[in-house]
């Protein structure tokens, strides 16, 4: 509370001194306790660097980037949904269904990467649109709606091939979304960066972003200010679905196949990243770089704990504790 008011004059003086760069930095790094997030990340890096000789290497960081790509991409969309005071539990299932849809489209319709991409992303968008429409038109809490689509979309994904994986052989598709690289940077990381930049523009520089913040910050006041809350909320779900579709393309291209049973329980990692990154589950607060950092912290934690030989069971425990602690900190 206090910290957001008292430093204002100082910050403004600084703004005048540093001008444009400072303004942009403030906009992108906003959030009530951003510093804690950066400090936490820094401490994590230092600790693991000392604890494991393999941690501090470019290869390992590219590895972390690849491993966190799926979660980071979807978490960008989830940031919009959570700022709008909603939740989307169906992202893992939407990813699985989108992957199946992309692979099947390439094997049955036309074996070109663009058809696969359109099918995958389109399927994600449809799942998101259903989430959004049912939530806003029937006034059912999104927690329940997306719990429903979590189950239904997973069921559909399993049904379409009677639970068998669908092999992907299109080399362009595999290169563009999974195995290629530009100047040594693997494409999953590049897609993550693209999603982050798109998310920043949309959330911090567009009218839609302002409307999302208002819809979550105080829905009644937003309504009285002429914001079409139903439309804005639905769009946030569609965006999340689209990004789940993109993540599906990345995953299926990397494994040369779409499998209907992948990433079960992924929604937990995504929601954990978003809340850790400073989004309030009570709506109206959050920022894209925070979400990215949240996802990287969880990814680094996973990576570091593996290098240190911590069991995967204990990793789950640590992750669970972090989610609750993050909410405790962002709570008003």
């Amino acid at each position, binding site marked *: 509370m206090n910290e957001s008011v008292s430093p204002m004059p100082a910050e403004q003086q600084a703004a005048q001194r540093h001008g444009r760069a400072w303004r942009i930095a403030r906009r992108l790094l906003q959030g009530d306790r951003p510093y804690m997030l950066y400090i936490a990340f820094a401490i994590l890096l230092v600790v693991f660097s000392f604890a494991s000789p393999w941690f501090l290497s470019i290869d390992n960081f590219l590895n972390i980037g690849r491993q966190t790509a799926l979660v980071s991409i979807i978490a960008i969309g989830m940031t919009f949904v959570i700022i709008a005071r909603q939740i989307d539990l169906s992202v893992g299932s939407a990813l699985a269904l989108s992957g199946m849809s992309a692979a099947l489209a390439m094997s049955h319709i036309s074996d070109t990467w663009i058809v696969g991409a359109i099918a995958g992303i389109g399927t994600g968008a449809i799942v998101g649109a259903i989430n959004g429409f049912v939530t806003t038109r029937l006034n059912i809490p999104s927690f329940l709606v997306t719990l429903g689509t979590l189950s239904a979309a997973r069921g559909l994904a399993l049904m379409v091939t009677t639970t068998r994986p669908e092999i992907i052989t299109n080399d362009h598709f595999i290169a563009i979304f999974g195995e290629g690289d530009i100047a040594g940077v693997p494409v999953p990381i590049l897609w993550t960066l693209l999603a982050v930049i798109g998310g920043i523009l949309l959330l911090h520089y567009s009218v839609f972003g302002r409307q999302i913040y208002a819809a979550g*910050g105080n829905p009644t006041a937003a309504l009285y*200010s002429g914001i079409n809350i139903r439309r804005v909320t639905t769009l946030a779900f569609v965006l999340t679905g689209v990004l789940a579709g993109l993540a599906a393309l990345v995953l299926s291209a990397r494994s040369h196949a779409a499998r209907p049973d992948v990433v079960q329980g992924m929604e937990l990692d995504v929601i954990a990243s978003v809340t850790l990154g400073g989004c309030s589950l009570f709506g109206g*607060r959050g920022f894209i770089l925070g979400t990215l950092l949240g996802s990287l912290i969880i990814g680094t934690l996973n990576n570091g704990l593996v290098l240190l030989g911590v069991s995967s069971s204990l990793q789950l425990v640590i992750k669970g504790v972090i989610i609750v602690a993050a909410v405790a900190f962002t709570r008003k």
Partner: protein
Amino acid sequence: MSEPVAVAAASSPRVPLIRVAGVTKKFGGVQALRGVNLEVLPGEVHALLGENGAGKSTLIKILSGVHTYDEGSIEIAGQKVAFESPARSREAGVAVVYQDLSLVESLSVGANLMLGREPRTRLGFVRQRELMAQVGAFLREHNIPLDPRVPVDSLPFAYRQMTEICKALMGDVRVLILDEPTSALTGGEEQILFDAIRTVTARGVGVIYVTHRLNEVFRISQRVTVFRDGANAGHFATADTDMKQLVAAIVGPRHAAMQARQETSTGASAQTVQSKAAQTAEPNTLDAPVLALSNVSNARLHGVNFAVRKGEVHGLAGLIGSGRTEILQTIFGLLPIDAGSIELDGQPLAARRPGDAIQRGIALVPEDRHLQGLVLDHSIERNLTLPRLPQFSRGGWLRAQAAAQQARTAMKQLSVKAPNASTHVKFLSGGNQQKVVFAKWNHPRPKVLLLDEPTVGVDVGAREEIYGVVHDAASAGTGVVVVSSDLDELLRLCDRISIVVDGSIVRTVERAQLRTAEELHHLIQLPRPTEELAT
């Protein structure tokens, strides 16, 4: 459980159940009560009247143990009692039924009445049958038509209120305080409530009945006490008084004096507002109306007709729940129209949602700025730009500089006191918050500005500034509609005032025809003004 009123009934009818003598209360520098007196006899309904801020709620809060009092004394059945906490006040036999109900809606009437004191088995399970039997006996004894098994959320509002009253009566109650119990009731429901009150008083309980509706006073009460400015302004036996006398006591002689004071203290802006009274009628009469409602009906409105001219300030006066707010909400697209039409500049205005209304140049400053007007957790700039985002964007992208520039200009024009435009709204004072709500509609000027209780919770200085803003808007040609329960405010701001009763406008008067707030008060209180005025 069913010995609640035995004590009260036993005591002599001449000893007051409760005697408040010379009680004072100061909040900071504000003297809320300057030594008030009140006596309630067993079996009596004692009406407590007064304008907002007269001290009624302060006294109720003292009696219910929420606030302490500074001087004076309070006796219950001749015994001095310290009302230091709600629990102690309840022990002394004082029960308060507030306007906002405190029931668990998903539970049955019986479960609500016994909440927290359910009969249990040794293992802690609730003896359901015994509970219902106890409640049933209590209801029969008090002759109250409620079924203990029915869930509260399936009941009409009057029966919920009755449940609330029963809840207050479970236990040793001597004095029951009802705070505006009928504000949300329909006519038929009112009768049910009055019957319940009579049943209660027949058992010797004393009732303090707070209301703004004077006709109820004559229907239910035996005596009346009027508060004004934190002091007793009158005490009447209901049978020996009339509405005129009560209104005079409520409004007081201050009206003329107050107008003079405002004129001298606020200088130019007040004078220009004052001059309105003189100039009204003639100048704009020929102008076509900027906003016209004809026969507008929906769930809450029953055929509303009125028109606002360019540059006119048009007041809507009426009781709480009469439909004033709903008229504004319907114009703004928040409530659907079932029949009739609204025209803006002669064109039909079919606003299906607030966005449509805003686009057509209509603005609303809502009743509750925290809930409806502001995103408290966001900056001034974000709040200011919210209703007019298209104005600050190109192709869907925000023009941050333009938005920040506009925010600074608006803050300066309305003299919003804050470090800068990125200050969070929640840190501002009530008056400054309200100025931010006004500033949302500052530029460009709306064609129609709808104001719902524009100065509630705003200090005197900011209030004058807000009056200035309203006046500026009208001078620039905006048609203004003001809903206010503060009659002096309506008299100060408006060119014409329409009286709203039960979702329709019964009468529109020119400001020049009204001399005092008292006259306006009469118009609001009388359901059929023409008839009654003739007598």
